[in-house]
């Protein structure tokens, strides 16, 4: 789960990370009021859980409350990578002497959490990683020991931070790690960590991703989750227990198992089609869930055809067939649906679909070719 910058900062502040004074607001007047209260130049920042908002014009400096009102007015309502900005964070602007990078995430290959520090923080950190990786110091955390103090010192010295900044950077990193662990984050990042002209350190941007699988033990983060769902269709799918990702094409795809669905996407693309979504109904789905899945896919108006690809293991093909028929009863379906059922109870499943408008297919390849032809042809 991605959360907004201001939410990440709320979490970090609880663990003792110094953040700029400020507030997130939803309208321009409130932005001006925050700027007035702060009594200093402010930065107004679009709250969207995607990168590149700076380049998209979503981050602006304002010297006065009036300027703050004006830039907040520009940013609120703008669309960044397809996401409409509904909130801006208005906060005190920092006097920057140096920008550092602090990050903690999972290194899958090492099977450990990795801590990264660089003296070359700021927007170009990925560029730094690609061209001069030695400028990013790393330490890997032993899962039994946890992050040891000496490792924090090691990585801060190795990153070449200004010597006078090391002591407070180590406190920052400890707080960041505590926040990372306590909130089951998969990523916690401060970029930039600003060394101000007065010699103190402050987190002017922050990013935390929470492990969805761990949300059950963080009920206090549920409110963040709500706000992080920007796509109403995705939100609805997740509520119904479906793995769903919206894509750009027009062929709706439903299958059981992530790998199988991804392969189905690949086949549709090979056949010249463009998938409209990824939807995995998981293992052992009952008719009801299948019907829900079809309903979600069809709620996307771009969809011109749907492909079901089911390999029955725990999932029974007859349950899937029943689900499709149930959905067909509930909705008026005006697009072609190709159904490939194989595995557990495939005979029963196919029998149920006989005599309906649903189009059977034998293999994944045939099914993909068929739905693409139908969508291209424009008719079932």
């Amino acid at each position, binding site marked *: 789960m991605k959360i907004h910058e201001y939410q990440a900062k709320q979490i970090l502040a609880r663990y003792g990370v110094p953040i700029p004074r400020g507030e997130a607001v939803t309208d321009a007047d409130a932005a001006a009021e925050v700027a007035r209260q702060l009594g200093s130049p402010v930065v107004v920042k679009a709250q969207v859980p995607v990168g590149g908002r700076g380049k998209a014009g979503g981050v602006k400096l304002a010297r006065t409350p009036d300027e703050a009102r004006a830039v907040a007015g520009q940013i609120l309502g703008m669309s960044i990578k397809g996401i409409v900005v509904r909130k801006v964070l208005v906060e005190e602007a920092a006097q920057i002497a140096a920008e550092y990078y602090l990050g903690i995430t999972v290194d899958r290959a090492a099977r450990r959490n990795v801590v990264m520090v660089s003296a070359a923080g700021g927007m170009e950190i990925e560029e730094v990683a690609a061209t001069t990786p030695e400028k990013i110091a790393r330490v890997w955390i032993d899962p039994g020991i946890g992050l040891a103090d000496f490792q924090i010192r090691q990585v801060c010295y190795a990153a070449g931070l200004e010597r006078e900044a090391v002591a407070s950077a180590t406190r920052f990193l400890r707080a960041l790690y505590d926040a990372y662990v306590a909130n089951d984050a998969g990523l916690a990042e401060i970029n930039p960590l600003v060394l101000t002209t007065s010699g103190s350190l402050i987190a002017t941007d922050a990013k935390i991703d929470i492990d969805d699988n761990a949300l059950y033990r963080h009920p206090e983060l549920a409110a963040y989750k709500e706000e992080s769902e920007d796509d109403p269709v995705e939100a609805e799918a997740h509520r119904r227990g479906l793995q769903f990702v919206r894509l750009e094409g027009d062929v709706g795809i439903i299958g059981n198992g992530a790998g199988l669905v991804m392969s189905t996407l*690949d086949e549709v693309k090979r056949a010249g089609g463009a998938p409209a979504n990824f939807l995995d109904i998981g293992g052992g789905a009952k008719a009801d869930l299948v019907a829900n899945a079809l309903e979600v896919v069809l709620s996307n108006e771009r969809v011109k055809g749907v492909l079901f690809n089911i390999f029955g293991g725990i999932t029974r093909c007859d349950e899937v067939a029943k689900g499709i028929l149930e959905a067909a009863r509930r909705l008026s379906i005006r697009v072609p649906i190709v159904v490939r059922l194989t595995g557990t109870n495939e005979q029963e499943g196919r029998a149920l679909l006989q005599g309906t408008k649903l189009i059977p297919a034998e293999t994944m390849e045939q099914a993909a070719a068929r739905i693409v032809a139908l969508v291209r042809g424009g008719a079932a």
Partner: protein
Amino acid sequence: MSILINRETRVLVQGITGREGTFHTQQMLAYGTRVVAGVTPGKGGTTTLDVPVFDTVAEAVRQTGANASVIFVPQRFAPDAVLEALDAGLSLCVCITEGIPIQEMIRVVHFVRQSQVGGGGMRLIGPNCPGLISAGECKIGIMPGNIVQRGRVGVVSRSGTLTYEIVDSLSRAGLGETTCIGIGGDPILGSTFADILPLFEADPETEAVVLIGEIGGSDEEAAAEYIPRMTKPVIGFISGRTAPPGKRMGHAGAIVSGGRGTAQAKVEALTNAGVPVADTTSEIPGLVRQALRS
């Protein structure tokens, strides 16, 4: 021959009295698996499907000599279940449970792998995996047994149903399998491709290996470093080739992955290691046959 499990494997089911646990225990018994014990705390002394149930894994092992376990307990109890299996001295644990927090698995996998230092210890398959079948001998997990036919090919995969699809096609093509393993779809796994390939390499009956990867992580790239040392042919498949790069992972993700993890990078790594990579699943049996001929 086969790898990891065979006719002699004595299987214990952790969470045997749950809905999933009972259903799949039935399926495993029907396949001929020697399910010798179940564990559900508080249900010790009862039986399920005529299998004796114990309160703890240690007690079950003492009483039945179980040496492998399969875990069907819910998300929040699964990490502890793996540690319990480890503590009881089992040599194999297959964790079917999905949705375990990644930080839990980092810890658990660390301790499991620590047990392997200097040989011995416990091997963990999964979590979030379908389990494995040694054709005609033993089935642990949830793979449908009917698609597997005794034969010449070892299959190792990060997927579930996609594996069934491919195994089914190998069986229909008359090639058949030795052992089929789903190592799981999570970012942190007990066993990786690089852990399983040497077992197939050492198994006299396995003549070729099919490796089914997907986007994300670098397990396929790591496997590609080992494959050139193998005497047996490996055929690859990578799903997710057309998947969009996904929403942004933050800088840290990009820094750590450093360009690995894309389908393209994986196909390239495998190809450079001499592995024929199929474009579609239907090509796989043909590529296997071809590799076996040459």
